């Protein structure tokens, strides 16, 4: 490895944050998307690297379609959500010919592509790069951490849902972070309670409080709860900017508080 490496495509990236969870479907990609939008609205330049190679969700959640990825002298040009170029994305979703194509790859091929995603994307100047990951503690996670080793990673945000079946998997992810020396910025409890739009009764569909308990148990900071909100699910389905569309909602204030906590935690580190 070249010791004079300038950090490749990440040379001008200020902060790198991983979004992890041992469990699938807890809202890693949704949280990545909403945090990116919240940071964007706070005036930051943001990038999202989607290393979920078998199930990339980020392109749809930001409704960028399937543009072709171009090459420039310094590598692959990321896809921008708008002309202001303040939100840059890279995902395997952009590299597939047909959106239904299955990426039936074993570990070594996944590791190789993640290596390229880390070193060969021309991110340019970014305040924050968020890395969205698949569930688990396997090839993709090791690859991303190993490839980012020469670059400073600020830490990881762990996403869980409240029920024990989910916090049990996230407990293992915490062990993973500790083993590889990755700082835990905090735990987010997603899908925490559902307020019936008809009668305002709150149902804890996936239980309640598990994320906060896990934070206490493992001595990790707790970043907050995000409720189940059909408006949020619809926004990510249709690739709309939830942060802009529903500034009055409880979900919005939950997300912006979490974004603020992450910013404070990183900038005071």
């Amino acid at each position: 490895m070249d010791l004079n490496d300038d950090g490749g495509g990440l040379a001008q990236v200020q902060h790198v944050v991983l979004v992890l969870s041992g469990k699938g479907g807890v809202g890693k990609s949704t949280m990545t998307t909403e945090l990116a939008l919240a940071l964007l609205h706070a005036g930051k330049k943001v990038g999202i690297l989607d290393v979920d190679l078998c199930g990339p969700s980020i392109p749809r959640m930001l409704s960028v379609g399937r543009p072709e990825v171009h090459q420039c002298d310094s590598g692959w040009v990321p896809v921008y959500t708008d002309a202001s170029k303040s939100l840059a994305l890279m995902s395997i979703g952009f590299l597939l010919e047909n959106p239904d194509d299955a990426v039936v790859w074993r570990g070594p091929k996944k590791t190789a592509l993640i290596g390229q995603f880390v070193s060969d994307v021309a991110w340019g100047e970014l305040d924050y790069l968020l890395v969205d990951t698949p569930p688990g503690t396997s090839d993709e996670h090791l690859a991303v951490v190993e490839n980012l080793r020469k670059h400073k990673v600020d830490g990881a945000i762990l996403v869980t849902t409240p029920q024990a079946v989910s916090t049990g998997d996230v407990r293992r992810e915490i062990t993973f972070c500790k083993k590889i020396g990755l700082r835990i910025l905090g735990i987010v409890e997603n899908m925490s309670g559902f307020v019936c739009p008809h009668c305002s009764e709150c149902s804890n569909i996936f239980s309640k409080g598990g994320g906060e308990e896990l934070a206490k148990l493992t001595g990790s900071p707790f970043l907050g709860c995000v409720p189940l909100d059909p408006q949020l699910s619809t926004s990510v389905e249709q690739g709309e900017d939830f942060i802009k569309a529903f500034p009055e909602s409880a979900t919005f204030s939950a997300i912006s508080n979490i974004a603020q906590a992450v910013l404070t935690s990183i900038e005071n580190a």
Partner: protein
Amino acid sequence: MADVPDNAPEHCPGTTSEQAGKTSACQGCPNQKICSSGAARAPDPAIEEIKEKMATVKHKILVLSGKGGVGKSTFSAHLAHGLASDVSAEVALLDVDICGPSIPRIMGLEGEQVHQSGSGWSPVYVEDNLAVMSIGFLLSSPDDAVIWRGPKKNGMIKQFLRDVDWGELDYLIVDTPPGTSDEHLSIVQYLSSAQIDGAVIITTPQEVSLQDVRKEIRFCQKVKLPIIGVVENMSGFICPKCKNTSQIFPPTTGGAQKMCADLNLPLLGSIPLDPRIGRSCDEGRSFLQHVPDSPAASAYEQIIQSIKDYCTYRSQHNGTDE
């Protein structure tokens, strides 16, 4: 579909590839000699051993989804409970989610350990006719992370199939992690001679989930795995207070029904969100026994019946393969 050894370099073409031992990545690999000799291209002998082991297993069903957290383990567990409610049926549940094993908790078996017997690893029994195996039984603490790359996960799956004393079984249900990678290729490859009856695909109603599930369906088609049908989970929520339905995960593109119509697949049924399902899983109890008169339980029962019918039909029409 190639196997990659533990000590192989990053760009290993796989030991069963035409390029094995010949690419630039192979230079310096300790396996280069054996690969270039072609010996590694012969099928893994474990496939035949597994076929023998599985000769006493009548039906093998995979539970798959491209998407995580859609309820694969919850469904697998309840399918197992449902099938085992017929006391004359012998049922086993194998969890091949190596990095996130949820089955031990959902089956109420957290903290259980696997025992070694003369004929292999003994599975853990929930009932006399319901056996369970998971990597969770091999971990010493709930904090233990299994930080393994593909080849080690594959080795574990091979052991689960070959070295577990499954005995005579009517049904073996295999719960999988999300995606289309090592675990999925391995289970299909290792069971290739033993024949899998088919896969049940789980999804939730929203497009973000369906787009991953379509990939899983492509995967099944690629590896020629029959699809028993699709189950739509978390399909609407009925407020316990006012009884109105909310679409928490809205089917913005028509949900599983539209996808099944487009891809010409059977929709086995839709299971509503019910907070008691999650609670039952956390407490390790069967929701079907615990809340039998709920709409979700009757949806489960119907789906389980369709799967039974599929298996019966298959054994009647496939008798010559055995």
